[in-house]
């Protein structure tokens, strides 16, 4: 048998996502110069349609407000 406990439902987004994001960013800052970081961000990350995911997030937030 399994039982749902209140403690099961405590969000851990901060640890699993926010902290990970901060930790890995700090590591890269310590090992990579500004120019190379900018170069990779522009040439790799910015080309991966991040505007689409931002729009999806915004749309979903708007939808939740209006339902």
């Amino acid at each position, binding site marked *: 048998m399994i039982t749902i406990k209140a403690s*099961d439902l*405590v969000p851990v987004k901060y640890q699993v996502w926010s902290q990970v994001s901060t930790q890995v960013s700090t590591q*890269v800052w310590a090992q990579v110069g500004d120019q190379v970081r900018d170069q990779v961000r522009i040439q790799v990350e910015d080309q991966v349609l991040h505007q689409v*995911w931002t729009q999806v997030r915004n749309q979903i937030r708007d939808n939740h407000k209006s339902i």
Partner: protein
Amino acid sequence: MPKLEELTPEQIAKFGFYVQKWLKIGLDTTECDFDKAIAAAKKCYALKGLPEPTKFLGPFNNPFESSIATSVLSKWVDKSFENNTALNEALMKEVASIIENKRFDFPSDLANQIYGNHEYWLSYYDYFRTECAITGCEITDGLMDMAIVCGWWTPLAGACVFQHRPEQIHFDDRRRIHNTEGPAIKFRGSPYNNVYALHGIRVKENVIRRNYTAADIDKESNVEVRRVMIDLYGQEKYLLDSNSKVVHADDFGTLYSKEQSNDEILMMVKVINATPEPDGSFKDYFVRVDPKAYNGLKTAHAAVASTWRNKDGSMVFGSPNDYDPDIQT
């Protein structure tokens, strides 16, 4: 240890590989792989030293349905089930019932959801780790595994709630989300998270369905959305249906203008095609004109003259009076 200050040509040549790799992940529209999502979630928790969760739920169709699921779980505290499968089946059934009966009185848990295959920022760390041997990126391994197998998901201390990825994503030729006939981003299941957009501008569903009036356009406060609505409605039709002003009429045509809040005046000139249609009738044409031409258009004659442009966009006629056609073609 010195910082990495320059990339080698070999490292630069790898940019395209990571762009394509993460585009493929982000645009994947297949269903969530539940078993692999469980493994990826366990890795995420382990990398942060968190206790392994024991309840794995879903996959739900979209963020909205996932939000309902976590709300139901909060009402089921102290409730017992035979095993995870029994809990998941009961939860899926309850969420479906809430959707069917539109019992939407639950708090949103969007703030607790993370983005699975939409974590585009991981591409940056994937590159540094693999191509530049930067240490410390291993902390993202669980999120990277999750990006490959799952849509958005909710990590809770003892439970994970997974979602499918969107079912369809449509773009225009400039890779902006776009669909004139339905959702630009369509999720499985209930329609509440579908994204409607034209050339990257998000609009409401009724716009795509062409279910709006000229008055609705005038009420729209967002300039970009209003422009999209006018284009879809038809500029001429909008001008005629929205109490636009006739500025001037002469033998060259009729000049209309329509004031728009926070945007340039919409000005069009109606001209009659000098060539008859096959049935002998003469068809009207509306041509959009620049209200600022000739220091502000005041006559239909000037408006028609302003439509004559050189290849570089400059005016063919220095003054409207220079446009005096003897023969119309």
